[in-house]
């Protein structure tokens, strides 16, 4: 009843929604780098969306499962190989007991989230299973995974279910081979007035390259320096996910999941919440251009995304074929089955969903969804 790590990959670790509520004591919140991918992978294998996943960076792990289970990988352009047979990402893949699973890396994206059906038996530390490498807490023994690590599965019955019908909306990531520059929307930062007009123009009109000195703590960008009026030092204040700081050299650093809670550099902008997962998927060498967005618009986008995701989860729940057989009447609304989210930014709320009347019976509605998704 366990997952055995054969090859860990360079930076594979356990992450969930993050360790919330301890920033005032100096704890980084940690958590998913690509929240959307992690939520999707979890929902594909029937987990609550903020369940802990294996997060890997660029190179995925090789794992051996001694029990049958469903897994799914989302995020960058990755693939799954089970005993040499290839399966696509963004789908639940049934792993027979005693098989080896390998992850292949494709053309786009940096972070992958591998969800295991029923969840991993990892203790919560201060309310979260997220690994905090700096403190050596959370995840598997507070560290990145190593060959030989064994993690037990929490629900051995997950492998008995057929989850291959579940699907998630398609996402398109910009590959380094694409000619385009990724546009990332930002809100005016709290210290924008510390920069000259020329500096602000530089920031919004230049292409910045993701530096190889980037990690879960922050992404460094190289490009034209942003001119400050007189230095970038401020009286230390709080830092948010996606905050764009300008350091003494004038180059931007974007603060990510393992960021420090407070800092003394001026923040020219903040990446909007719905664009952070896409930004996190940019590989070193890829280019980014910042675009202004209003705070009100950013909040509207958050609500819209949360609503769409909530609806999608409801729809999956209601088209569950194992439940459908028990429901003879058309249009009967099933109670949600454990799709509650504990994620802070995107709680999946159960209220407010209306039966949209797709199809007549459960089975038909499912095929309607399949057609809609084009698969």
């Amino acid at each position: 009843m366990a997952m055995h790590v054969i090859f860990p990959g360079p930076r594979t670790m356990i992450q969930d929604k993050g360790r919330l509520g301890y920033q005032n004591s100096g704890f980084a919140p940690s958590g998913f780098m690509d929240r959307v991918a992690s939520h999707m992978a979890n929902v594909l294998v029937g987990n609550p969306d903020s369940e802990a996943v294996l997060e890997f960076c660029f190179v995925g792990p090789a794992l051996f499962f001694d029990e049958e289970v469903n897994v799914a990988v989302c995020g960058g352009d990755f693939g799954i190989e089970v005993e040499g047979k290839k399966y696509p990402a963004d789908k639940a893949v049934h792993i027979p007991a005693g098989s080896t699973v390998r992850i292949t890396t494709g053309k786009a994206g940096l972070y992958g989230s591998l969800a295991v059906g029923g969840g991993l038996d990892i203790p919560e530390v201060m309310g979260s299973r997220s690994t905090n490498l700096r403190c050596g807490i959370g995840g598997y023994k507070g560290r990145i995974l190593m060959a030989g690590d064994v993690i037990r599965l929490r629900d051995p019955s997950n492998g008995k279910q057929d989850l291959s019908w579940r699907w998630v909306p398609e996402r398109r990531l910009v590959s380094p081979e694409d000619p385009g520059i990724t546009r990332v929307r930002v809100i005016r930062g709290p210290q924008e007035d510390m920069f000259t007009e020329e500096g602000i123009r530089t920031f919004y009109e230049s292409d910045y390259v993701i530096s190889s000195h980037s990690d879960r703590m922050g992404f460094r960008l190289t490009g034209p320096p942003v001119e400050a009026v007189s230095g970038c030092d401020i009286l230390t204040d709080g830092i948010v996910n996606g905050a764009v700081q300008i350091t003494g050299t004038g180059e931007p650093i974007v603060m990510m999941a393992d960021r420090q809670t407070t800092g003394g550099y001026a923040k020219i902008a903040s990446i909007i919440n719905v664009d952070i997962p896409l930004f996190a998927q940019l590989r070193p060498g890829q280019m980014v251009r910042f675009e202004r967005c209003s705070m009100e618009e950013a909040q509207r986008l958050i609500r819209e995304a949360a609503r769409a995701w909530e609806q999608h989860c409801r729809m999956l729940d209601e088209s569950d074929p194992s439940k459908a057989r028990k429901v003879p009447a058309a249009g009967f609304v099933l109670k949600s089955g454990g799709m509650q989210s504990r994620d802070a930014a995107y709680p999946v709320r159960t209220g407010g969903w209306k039966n949209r009347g797709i199809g007549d019976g459960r089975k038909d509605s499912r095929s309607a969804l399949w057609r809609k998704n084009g698969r």
Partner: protein
Amino acid sequence: MEFKIVPVGDSALTIVFGSKIDPEISRIVRVARKFLAKKDIEGVNEYVQTYATLMVHYRPVDIGYHELAAKIEEELSQMDPEGERLKKKTILIPVCYGGEFGPDLPTVCAHAGLSKEEVIRRHSSVDYLIYMLGFLPGFVYLGGMDHSISTPRLKDPRERLEKGSVGIAGDQTGVYPMISPGGWQIIGRTPLNLYDHDREDPILYEAGEFIRFVPITENTFREIQKQEDEHSYEYQWIREE
């Protein structure tokens, strides 16, 4: 009491009470943090106190910026910063100064032109105000160090400072809750686990409280360290009546 509220990204806002390091501003920030935390405002995740600001992390799916800012403004208008005077609370942190625990104590003595005993006396005779925590879990930004023992940082930062290292950097003093690289002049070490995720309060203190360093011998250091490992050490507090 004056303050202004500014949005920071789409999921946080900052309440700005001032723009300098000042015990009175810090006190107001702390009173506001405690006051607002009690109100249990729907949609708020957490409050983060810094020198002169209070950052509020919230969920925009539950409350929009303008609604939350109005709510905070209304709540704070009800707050009496004088009526909410919080009692002084000081934690005693035992420190073994000098020797292998404080390799830079001679540097600090030479820079200050003072004897070892006098530097230790000046360092341990102040109640330091915890302005804020940040950088590392439990890392304190303290105020109130005697200027006569100020010493510049090391030119070459050390790759590894041991957990509990007590140091001086310019006008600042502080203690490293965990192993970390750092450029501070290390003058001693505490045997306390300033951070322990198994403890009910992983961090012993919070912004607005005080720290007093208490000199101990190497034998006492070992003794307390043993008690800490067994979770039997009783933390020493001085509480204002």
